[in-house]
């Protein structure tokens, strides 16, 4: 399922069989076929001013005005909701900053058993001496999201190239929904399978210390974001005008040379956006990491150790906190930070896509 894809590409009906006289030399498609030409922009692109003018004449009718206002309010609902989410997250989260000194979000100074001061960076909000370091949580989130985006990026871009440039039309019609089915599997199921089967298999294969670790979570998350990256990559490649491919073939290039030297470079903004959005999705994933990463809130760079992500922290602890307490608000703060990061990634991706549109339309 392509959520919020910026490219709308329509396939035209094509091809047919030649008359079957035997002396006909049927030229086999040399496999250097490019995709069909993209269709024009949304149908309403040209008629705006005219419709608007016509609409003003109808505003005399009060019924119409009411309907339009109702629709407009619904339109703004998305904006209001995003604003509300932002508001409530930060309203609760910022209160944590009043209860907990800022430095404690990095690390807490404790005295160890010998009486010396030592800085520990732990997230242990429960207990007599609560610690609120966010570093283990950041570490965990990125230790899962980066490998996941890497794996899913390689797989997804390859799938995108295959679907857009290499696959025959009929194959594509089968493979593409197949890959999109992967996106339809509930994440709790993937997490469950990682926990129940893949974890043991991986431990037997690789001999890792922890059965549940960041890498296992990364594989699970990668499985979920491959369809996102594949779909956006395919859209980006199909948006490259066919004339460029034809020009490249006209100069005597092989199919892969055209893909590698013309099509992919022209689509690189869209592919980058796909990767950025995939990473955002990986950072926001909750159930898989909750079930597969082991939930140990430690700072580590070992991808095979147990970690705790920001999302898992919220999910694991929100049920047991006292409303209004420091931990409760700290969780909202984590949520606010998470929201900000994914929001920023979304904005960056949209800027990249806008830049791509400008370059190609020129």
């Amino acid at each position, binding site marked *: 399922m392509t959520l919020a894809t910026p490219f709308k590409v329509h396939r035209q009906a094509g091809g047919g069989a030649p008359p079957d006289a035997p002396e006909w030399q049927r030229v086999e498609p040399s496999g250097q076929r*490019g995709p069909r030409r993209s269709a024009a922009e949304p149908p309403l692109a040209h008629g705006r001013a005219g419709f608007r003018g016509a609409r003003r004449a109808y505003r005399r009718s009060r019924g119409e005005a009411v309907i339009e206002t109702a629709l407009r309010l619904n339109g703004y609902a998305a904006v209001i909701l995003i604003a509300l989410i932002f508001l409530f997250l930060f309203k609760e989260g910022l209160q944590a900053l009043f209860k907990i000194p800022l430095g404690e979000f990095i690390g807490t100074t404790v005295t160890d058993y010998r009486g010396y001061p030592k800085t520990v960076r732990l997230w242990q909000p429960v207990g007599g001496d609560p610690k609120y370091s966010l570093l283990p949580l950041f570490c965990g989130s990125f230790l899962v999201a980066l490998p996941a985006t890497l794996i899913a990026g390689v797989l997804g871009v390859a799938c995108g190239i295959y679907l857009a440039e290499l696959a025959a039309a009929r194959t594509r019609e089968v493979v593409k929904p197949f890959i999109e089915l992967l996106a339809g599997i509930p994440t709790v199921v993937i997490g469950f399978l990682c926990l129940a089967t893949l974890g043991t298999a991986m431990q037997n294969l690789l001999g890792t210390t922890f059965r549940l670790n960041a890498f296992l979570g990364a594989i699970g998350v990668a499985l979920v974001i491959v369809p996102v990256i594949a779909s956006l990559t395919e859209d980006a490649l199909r948006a490259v005008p066919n004339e460029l491919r034809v020009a490249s073939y006209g100069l005597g290039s092989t199919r892969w040379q055209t893909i590698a030297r013309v099509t992919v470079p022209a689509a690189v903004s869209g592919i980058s956006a796909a990767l950025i959005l995939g990473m955002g999705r990986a950072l926001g994933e909750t159930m898989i990491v909750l079930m597969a990463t082991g939930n140990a809130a430690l700072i580590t760079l070992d991808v095979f150790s147990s970690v705790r992500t920001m999302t898992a922290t919220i999910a694991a602890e929100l049920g047991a906190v006292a409303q209004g307490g420091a931990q409760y608000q700290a969780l909202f703060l984590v949520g606010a930070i998470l929201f900000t990061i994914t929001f920023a990634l979304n904005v960056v991706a949209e800027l990249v896509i806008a830049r791509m549109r400008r370059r190609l339309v020129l």
Partner: protein
Amino acid sequence: MTAAGRADAAAVPAAKVMIRDLHYFYGPKQALDGISMDFAERQVTAIIGPSGCGKSTLIKAVNRIGEVVSEVSVRGTVRIGDLSVYGPDVDLVDLRRRVGMVFQKPNPFPKSIFDNAAFGPRLHGITDRDELSAIVERSLRQAALWEEVRDRLGASALELSGGQQQRLCIARALAVEPEVLLMDEPCSALDPIATAKIEELIHELKADYTIAIVTHNMQQAARVSDLTAFMYLGRLVEFDRTETIFTTPAQQQTEDYITGRFG
């Protein structure tokens, strides 16, 4: 047999591209019906005719670029020199390098001017920077674009004007040193000044290349070409020296088209 040229055999130079009884189908739809003609060496052959007569299809059949977009069926032969284009085991990559093509709408790659011109040579394995620079300069000079862009070869090709972009596309095609240059309405998207520059360019290139140009602009055909072919509904109606076609055409249909009675 379709209409052949009435010109004196001795006056018409050797044929570089020979098309014999070519039938061309896009899927079930016939686009060319028994075309036989030659593109003469170091001459400009213009192909004129009303919309849908198959002129673009004809030149796309020569470098087999039509197959990139859809399924085609072919009967008949096309030869370039001693190479049969539709023969078995024809290397399409090599064929398309030997036949250059310029398209109706300028389509430079979204890369720098240098990278556009160097694209073809790079495809075929030339990586030495100096060699590439020499090729780029040579091609841009041939396309009469060098003086205008020599100081900004690294700039994006999309920043050039329409006419400059088209000349860049011509340079790009010339950079692989083709034997034949096919041009599909190269000036239809350009303003008159740019058009004039390109027509002048064609005149200069004629000395070294075999050129076929499809155009819907009869005056352009008259200005630029040595030989002209008039096509209608997939058939070749008349093919002769340009002066003859435009002054004393043999077929009534040709005369009707040229005088504007249809099309």
